[in-house]
């Protein structure tokens, strides 16, 4: 068990290292002088030289990478060229809206998607199933920003029930925080619900075809308990896996949703940084999001040991 944990944790190191190399090379491999790209179109030679000096661009690539990585391990992501601020601070100041949005979306999603998917599987082929799956295809096909604007148009402009855009910090009142997060997380949850409901249905369907479900029925167990006790408990591993994998969708969605609803989070920061060609910020944000994704999936891997007794060595 302990060795399994250790092995899983160690296995993420090469992946994260490769991610870091990739992100590092991204800037270095661009056609042209990275310093000139960073400095922007209106920089003079002195400014470019200064940037080159700062990034150690004259050093060999290998040295540059370890220099960069070493700084990151000390929490130093460099200075943002656009905001003229430490990237670390910048990120810290932008985390709250992103975290709030993500958590609220996940809670909404799991509460809606898992029961819907299970119901659809249980009623396979019925109208209930078809309607749920129909909505799932629809939800999966509508881009987040289209849903976002449609929701704003309906609930804020036409009905006037909810504020249009913007964010309120949780310390300034939970009510306002919640109200302003409601539409963004709803918009973001749609695609997420569509995906997870569908995968839940597939997993539960697969389990319902297993022999032990027949055994449970042969015992005279009620259908509800067959579903809850035998099917869902066995479908838990694939469902949780899918939730973990769909964090990639969630993170992409966060970037777009924050732009639509002007939530001053990491997603909006990413877009601003890209538009401003603020590379230290871009690198830091991507690295951070990737790390979060890898860690979440690591945690999910570890949860298997609780969910499935067969994975325990």
């Amino acid at each position, binding site marked *: 068990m302990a*060795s399994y944990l250790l092995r899983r944790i160690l296995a993420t190191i090469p992946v994260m290292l490769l991610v870091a190399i990739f992100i590092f090379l991204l800037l270095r491999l661009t056609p042209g002088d990275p310093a000139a790209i960073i400095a922007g179109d209106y920089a003079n030679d002195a400014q470019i030289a200064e940037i080159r000096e700062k990034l150690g661009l004259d050093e060999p690539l290998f040295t540059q990478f370890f220099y960069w990585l070493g700084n990151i391990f000390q929490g130093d992501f460099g200075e943002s060229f656009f905001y003229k601020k430490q990237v670390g601070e910048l990120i810290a100041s932008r985390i709250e809206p992103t975290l709030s949005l993500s958590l609220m979306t996940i809670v909404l999603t799991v509460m809606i998607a898992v029961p819907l998917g299970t119901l659809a599987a249980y009623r396979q082929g019925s109208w209930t199933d078809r309607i749920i799956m129909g909505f799932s295809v629809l939800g999966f096909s509508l881009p987040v920003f289209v849903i976002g604007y449609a929701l704003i148009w309906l609930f804020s402009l036409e009905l006037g029930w909810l504020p249009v855009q913007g964010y309120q910090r949780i310390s300034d009142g939970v009510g306002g925080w919640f109200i302003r997060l409601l539409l963004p997380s709803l918009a973001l949850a749609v695609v997420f619900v569509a995906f997870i409901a569908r995968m839940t249905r597939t997993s539960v369907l697969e389990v319902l075809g297993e022999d*032990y479900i027949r055994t449970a029925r042969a*015992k*005279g*167990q009620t259908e509800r308990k067959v579903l809850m006790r035998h099917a869902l408990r*066995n479908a838990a591993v694939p469902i949780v896996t899918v939730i973990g994998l769909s964090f990639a969708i969630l993170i992409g969605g966060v970037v777009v949703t924050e732009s639509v609803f002007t939530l001053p989070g990491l997603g909006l920061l990413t877009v601003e940084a890209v538009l401003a060609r603020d590379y230290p910020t871009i690198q830091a944000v991507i690295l951070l999001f990737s790390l979060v994704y890898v860690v979440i999936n690591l945690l999910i891997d570890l949860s298997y040991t609780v969910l499935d007794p067969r994975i325990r060595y």
Partner: protein
Amino acid sequence: MTTEPVLDVRGLTVALPTSGDRSYAVEDITFSVNPGEIVCVVGESGSGKSVTASTVMGLLPGALKPVAGETLLQGEDTLKATKNRLRDLRGTKMAMIFQEPMTALNPVARVWEQIAEMLEIHTKLSQSERRKRAIEVMESVHLPDPERMADSYPHQLSGGQRQRIMIAIALVLDPALLIADEPTTALDVTTQAQILKLIKEMQERRGTGVLFITHDFGVVAEIADRIVVMKQGRIVEQGDREQVLKNPQEPYTQMLMASVPSMTPPERAVVGGEMAVEVKKLDKVYGRKGFLRRERIVHAAANVDFHVRRGETLGIVGESGSGKSTVARCIARLIDPTSGSISLHGTEIATLSQSKLRPHRRRVQIVFQDPYRSLNPRRTVGQSMIEAPVNFGVPIEEARRKARELMELVDLSADALDRFPHQFSGGQRQRICIARALALEPEVLIADEAVSALDVSVQAQVLKLLDDVRDRYNLAMLFITHDLRVAAQVCDRLIVMKSGVVVEQGPTREVFSNPQHEYTRLLLEAAPGTDVEFGSGRAI
């Protein structure tokens, strides 16, 4: 005790979905099971025997519908019972065990919980009483150390132990009827013998009526009080054990029983042909030590020595995990041996690189177990047949001509070459696979459980075909099987394997009549139905 049967099936007919090639899964079948009696329903695949069992339990898949007749469980028709009533009956009055003990238990629940679930559904016992009762019943099915095993998960138990758990679940509420659907088919022969003994013991002790579904006449002979023979949804013959086994009336029953290979090996002359394969000190080791990983090394084959001459059939028998298939795959070089020597007609092939090996590939051909996966479904039989000769430079026209000849040799018409594999039955496909293997005119033919997936009547034909081609082409044949009856009939010599090691070898007749090793004796004793002589059409 009254003579009322626990199960009385009358005129039962179950409809198939309209798309099928016949309209009923079972048609107008009538039989009964009395208290304390084991009734075996025996038949080949598609005979409707499993459908019958599921119908009684009310566990038919949605596409199948009973349309006529009744299934009376102690006088109560289960076809007419409401869903709730049916749930009440399951477990209390009728219970079922299934073919696949590996998958029939919920993998994420502890075994005692799965037994106790039965008590939870149908009784008012408390949690601790349920656990106590579960452990008691585990003890009664002879599971070792039930206190400790109760908290195990299914994957920690062997196949035989899991089937015992299934039996414990089925019998914990003492039902009047136990339905056993091929309960030993997935088990090794020694485990099968134990499970059959257990079912018999339980049934005698409790007076349970047992409906036992099987395809295996050996098992029937071992356990049946009465026998029902089915064919394509209908009952062909039924009667007492003695009557059916010793004096079968219907030609179909007679044919089936004649097709079951006899446990008595025929007299065979010693084959003195030239040496085809010589294996020395063959080792195959799986797994390796990994970083932070527990060492997991499996000796799939260890120190294996044998030889086969041309014109001779060497049988390798053993249970699952004995390493018999590993040996076969090493010789076909589908896997690389870890060490040892394989001499093919004097050429050492154990260590040849893939490119050097290629010219020798044509000399060893293999026929696999599963006829449904052995032919590429996207290619016509003809394309599959000529692939090998064309690989070795035979002109396409020449290869086609040869393929037509071979099709006739295996009793298929030449126009079969233009068809696709899905248009053939399992037995026909296995013939095609044999023809394909012969297309290269090999010296060695490996049959890896080649008849194990076939119905007994088809099996007999394919065995005969293998015997014929061996003689005709003077082949050295390596016959891998778990089935002692089959081995008895086709092999000149036998080697017996257990856990990767050869425990005994010798002429088939000698091994059968005078086994030297403990394990061989165990295997021979475990073979079901040895007291009835099959294979001749009449019982002794």
